[in-house]
């Protein structure tokens, strides 16, 4: 155990995982098949849980380890499972308001913005989570971008979960984790939210054939 905790802060497991976290967020923006997007979200959550686990091992804070385990079960297990069930039924590709290449470029700009501005705001840090904060800000922006530009309800839920993952990462990298009650509350919220949204998407699909929010703009008396 001591060997492990001695090795972890020096190694940059955290940095590589933060890279994986950013990479999967970018994949969510650029992939066209709904099921691939959900898989990228699952990998994103796994990277997040592993970062939290590494921090827990390095600091010895058991509550971070517990919330890492919880997010592994909920964010990498239950939520992607629920979303994949719906994504499998989607026959069409992801539909967007801006084209996929333009979206990828805009997200690239968001990442650069996040990295430069985080440095302005928080200065240069030297601890093991130095790379996590800009990554988390970048992925927050990407999550928002996904929510704004996707027209299918399911993909907007993916954006929401991505956003939440990034906020969790920001919390871990700024304060080494919020109290367990807060984490558990947020996770429960998210799970309930995604379940309700899943039911909502299902009703939309029953009513409209495909849950496209663009078709919700007209009122019918």
């Amino acid at each position: 155990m001591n060997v492990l905790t001695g090795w972890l802060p020096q190694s940059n497991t955290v940095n590589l995982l933060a890279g994986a976290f950013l990479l999967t967020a970018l994949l969510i923006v650029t992939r066209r098949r709904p099921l691939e997007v959900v898989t990228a979200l699952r990998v994103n959550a796994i990277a997040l849980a592993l970062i939290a686990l590494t921090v827990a091992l390095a600091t010895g804070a058991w509550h971070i380890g517990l919330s890492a385990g919880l997010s592994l079960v909920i964010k990498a297990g239950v939520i992607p499972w629920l979303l994949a069930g719906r994504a499998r039924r989607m026959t069409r590709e992801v539909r967007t308001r801006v084209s996929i290449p333009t979206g990828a470029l805009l997200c690239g700009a968001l990442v650069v913005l996040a990295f430069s501005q985080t440095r302005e705001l928080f200065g240069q840090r030297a601890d093991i989570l130095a790379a996590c904060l800009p990554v988390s800000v970048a992925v927050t922006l990407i999550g928002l971008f996904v929510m704004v530009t996707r027209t299918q309800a399911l993909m907007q839920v993916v954006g929401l979960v991505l956003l939440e993952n990034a906020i969790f990462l920001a919390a871990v990298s700024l304060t080494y984790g919020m109290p367990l009650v807060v984490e558990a509350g947020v996770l429960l919220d998210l799970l309930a939210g995604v379940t309700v949204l899943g039911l909502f998407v299902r009703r939309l699909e029953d009513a409209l054939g495909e849950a496209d929010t663009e078709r919700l703009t007209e009122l019918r008396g």
Partner: protein
Amino acid sequence: MMDLLVVIAQTVLVALLAPVWAGAVSVVRARLQGRRGAPLLQRWRDLRKLAGKETVWSEDASPLARVVPTAVLGATFVAAALVPVLSTAPGLGFAGDLLLLVALLAIVRVLLSLLALEAGTAFGGMAASRHLMLAALAEPALLLSLLTLAIAPGSTQLADIARTVAAAPLSWLSPAHLLAATAMGFVVLAEIGRVPVDNPVTHLELTMVHEGLVLDVSGPPLAHLEWASHVRTLVLLTLLTNLFVPWGLAPAGAGWGALGLALLAWLAKLGVLAVVIAVIESVTARMRLFRVPEFLGMAFLLALLALTTDSLLRG
């Protein structure tokens, strides 16, 4: 002196092993599909068969066509000599750096496209235009991802880069390393002309890229071109593994023991890549040609992000 010998030996090794690696990928793929597949040395047998055949040139072909196959093979061998395979000895470092390597690969592309136009057939022209389109998209991404690695050592020498990454503690790695490695992986996947981008076994005129280029070449010149394309694949894969995952590489002036270990590490990495590429080829369909710019654009974006985030994090 020893270093020079090592560089010569590793270049010869790359040249000899390249067709074997291509054979290994098809063996793995055949096994995945439940076939026994052609033997490991099949590509060498193909090359020997071609070398014994008669050459037929198109009557429209200029003398340039006769020079190109040999020039392509030569440029590819020089590119192979620049890459650190077993040892980080500078080798041909006096001659050039990663820019020279990229330029040599570009020369090969231009020569191949000219050769495809020589015979005066429509297929050659189509293949040449596709080939150059891919080149224009893949090259910037390749250069940017290599330059990301060049920031830390402050040098564009491939040997210096490999040495710095191998000697650095793991904490030296940043998210940029993973982004650049992914970008380079995408580029290599596109450049080696395998399934997601090109299909090496197709002869359907509307889809082929590499096959279209060499359609009008026969006999020993075709053997030269095929050998060069195998070597080029192995050079790119070695570049990918030995710059991004350089652990196991022997330092300059190392003894036989370290070199032997480096050889084992290199072969192991190539084995892993052969399996990965065979799996990718088996489970994915070939992309539509108009999706390829998007794929390579993604690679370019990742490489650009790697470069900017790396410089921002390093300050």
